[in-house]
């Protein structure tokens, strides 16, 4: 791929990718690292991109989402085995905690605390439900677009959103709402 072409793709999609990463991982440092990895992958795999199957934007979105989900899986398994590894590596100073620290610059609003609470609940949703909520509610994409990005049907997206809403409502009630 020509460097100039890559830079055009980067400048057109950098904010989209960075924001998606932020919504998933909820902190700037990890979002920057993942955005970097996403664009390296875009550069390496551009030859495999087929414009007939999806738009470039959809293709890049898929790469970003998959990277974020992989990152969260790795983080979760690291936490799961954190206790065991801390027994063998006594010099490890990483805290073992289930709470997610939110460092999302986009949440600096009047209802900051309520937003953070809601994002924390969304963070605990299953992968597909989380993706459906992030894309429709935060990224403001239509359900049709979300279905295309997730490579699924419109009905499946509707069902995922319905289940996500039920889970969020249940968790909000349990934690006493905002």
């Amino acid at each position, binding site marked *: 791929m020509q460097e100039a072409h890559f830079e055009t793709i980067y400048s057109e999609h950098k904010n989209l990718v960075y924001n998606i990463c932020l919504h998933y991982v909820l902190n700037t440092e990890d979002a920057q690292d993942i955005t*970097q990895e996403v664009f*390296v992958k875009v550069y390496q795999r551009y030859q495999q991109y087929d414009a007939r199957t999806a738009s470039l934007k959809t293709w890049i979105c898929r790469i970003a989402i998959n990277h974020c989900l992989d990152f969260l899986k790795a983080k979760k398994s690291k936490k799961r085995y954190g206790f065991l590894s801390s027994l063998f590596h006594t010099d490890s100073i990483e805290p073992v905690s289930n709470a997610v620290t939110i460092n999302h610059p986009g949440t600096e609003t009047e209802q900051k605390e309520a*937003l953070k609470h809601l994002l924390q609940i969304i963070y605990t949703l299953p992968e597909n439900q989380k993706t459906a909520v992030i894309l429709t*509610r935060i990224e*403001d994409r239509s359900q049709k677009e979300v279905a295309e990005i997730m490579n699924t049907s419109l009905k499946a997206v509707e069902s995922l959103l319905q289940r996500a809403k039920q889970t969020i409502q249940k968790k909000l009630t349990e934690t006493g709402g905002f």
Partner: protein
Amino acid sequence: MDINKTLDLLKQIKKTEAPPFLLTRIRQQLQNLQHTEAPVRWKWAFATSLIIILAINISMLINAANVNPVAENAEAQNIVNSLNLSTQNDFYNE
């Protein structure tokens, strides 16, 4: 509680600009990847040597499977007899 109203709160999240240094970091990583990648000649050399080693191993296994253990044993016995070697492991004849 109206969940749709609650979720509308998410629309307040502002779009964030990607930091300008990211492109430099990406360029650097791409450059590093190009440097660390092995040349094509090396890859071919490695693949060829691997194939040769595998072929030698397979031929050895096939040869070993084709050897007749009875014939081999008889040959060994002939050598032992001709050299008057002991076939026992005892050191002392008590």
